[in-house]
């Protein structure tokens, strides 16, 4: 059986892809990109989740104490990856919004299908 969170993650990715392919508004496209990214982040985070002996996992902070309690820790690497990826996502988001503002100033529209002056 496929875990519930994987289904959600792929649903988010496909929702993002759908919006990317069928929406015209530039701001919606930016949101679509972020939705795809968020889906991937959810996938990565859920890869690190562990449920052992019915005990809920704890945060991956090594203090030497948690091993005594016997509770599992979530994988630390996916969290590091997602943190990095979120930072990258913020850069892309801000640059995309800056370009959107510039595009609006030059074309006075946010419709991406009107950005078609480059031809030939």
């Amino acid at each position, binding site marked *: 059986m496929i875990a519930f969170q994987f289904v959600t993650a792929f649903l988010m990715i496909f929702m993002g892809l759908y919006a990317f392919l069928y929406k015209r508004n530039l701001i919606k496209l930016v949101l679509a990109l972020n939705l795809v990214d968020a889906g991937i982040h959810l996938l990565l985070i859920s890869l690190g989740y562990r449920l052992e002996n019915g005990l809920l996992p704890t945060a991956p902070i090594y203090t030497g104490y948690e091993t005594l309690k016997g509770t599992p820790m979530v994988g630390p690497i996916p969290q590091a*990856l997602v943190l990095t990826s979120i930072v990258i996502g913020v850069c892309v988001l801000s640059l995309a919004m800056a*370009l959107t503002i510039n595009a609006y100033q030059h074309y006075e529209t946010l419709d991406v299908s009107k950005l078609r002056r480059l031809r030939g």
Partner: protein
Amino acid sequence: MNVLPWLIITPLFGAFSMPVISLLGGKFREHWVVIVSGLTLGIAAKVFYTIWKSNEILVYTLGDTNPIGNGVKFPIRIIWEVDLFGALLALTITFVSFLAILYSLEYMKHDTGLDKYYTLTLVLELGMLGIVITGDIFNFYVFLEIMSIASYALVAFRNDTWEGIEAGVKYMFVGSLASSFILLGIALLYGQYGTLTMAYLAMKIAENPTLISKVALAFLVGGLLFKSGAVPVHMWLSDAHPAAPSSISAMLSGLVIKAGGVYAIARIIFGIFNPGLHSYLKAFDMPALNLNTLGWIIIFFACLTLVIGNAMAVVQNDMKRLFAFSSVGQIGYILLGFGIGIVAYGDKIGEIALTGAVYHIVNHAVIKGLLFFIAGAVIHQVGTKNLNELSGLARRMPFTTLSFIIGAAAIIGLPPLNGFASKWLIYESSAMYNPILAVIAVIGTVFSLAAYTRVLFTFLGVESEKVKMVKEPGNAMIVPMLVLVIIILVMGILSWQISDKIMLPTAKMLEQLNGEYIMALLKFMGGG
């Protein structure tokens, strides 16, 4: 002392000290950027020489001497793993970037915001350098994004024109989607195998090749084909490369689509999903991936790319757009070489094809750099890139025209210039593997010949009104062009020696018949 980390530290420090240096004035900024990129070139040359001399893969662990974690038996730290292919690309990247920066000193003189421009250029350079030296797949993604974000910003650098903004928007959305696919592929690989180190991932995949690894490979190669501008998805390239400032176009066309595109494809296929390893497993009836299918898919896209890219170049009226389509076509040749290298793996033919592909990456970086510098010189002096208005430029700009003749002859592949040797190796291997592929490759070259002849006739034609008062550009633009012309001529004369001494060992190291890429890591794990 290991110089490898300085390859990243130098441009990174140079980039982010740029705003402070700019406070001292424009002259300081120019000296600083030339010094920093020159120093990076020196470091890359040192790294290349070290690896070429010893013919061994260099492994560097970030923050430690050993990639293996305490108390565990597998690598947990980020490693950089540089083989000759990566080092050769690092040398090419730093060389062309150095010349592009030198060229921008005059070309960008009339623009504002130059501290941001030079910061972004150095960040772009360091992103590409990171891609070619890394041995960790998530680290690869981070550097890929550093490179991509810098190149989106540079394409839209002249934000007072609609051209740059439109191209930037298109490039940004397509590129970000491709990056997301690559990240998804990496996430799937991590979920299945629990490691990010490329060499260890290769071992894990060979132990247990699952459907997930195939899906991940499809996402990675698909995303990277987007980024390299292969044909069904090349539309962003023909918009983005002409709209950028010419010095940046030279870096984008010459380097970015190689480092973030074809290099990464080759590294992922030969480093992580090694065809030799899997055919070996198959010989013992073990579960293995069949990479021949992937090889044929890449050959199919390569043929499509090299015919359509070159054919589209013929009908362009915009000089830079013509060069950009020609870049698409040349990417097709490189992909064809890699595709034949995969399907004929372990064979003499595969080795020739890989040699040709690696050689063509370097040659195309040099030649396309020169051609975009020429386009920039024409735009800078005449103020237009429309071929219909540029008739008769030869008499007013003789040096530029001469450089163009040499560059065009080299990219078409006429002997005795450097493009001939690499294209010949690709034709030879494709003719030996399947003559139909060779025919397709030659058709691409015919289109390319037509496109460049058209530009040449424009330059040599009757003088038009626009070019009556035109002069040659200044020295800061002439010198980089002259250096590239000399490099093309020298590489052309010594082409077969270079092929034997540098390109063949590089192709062998990329092909890694004995699994050298994995062995370099196994040395640390013991029992290798």
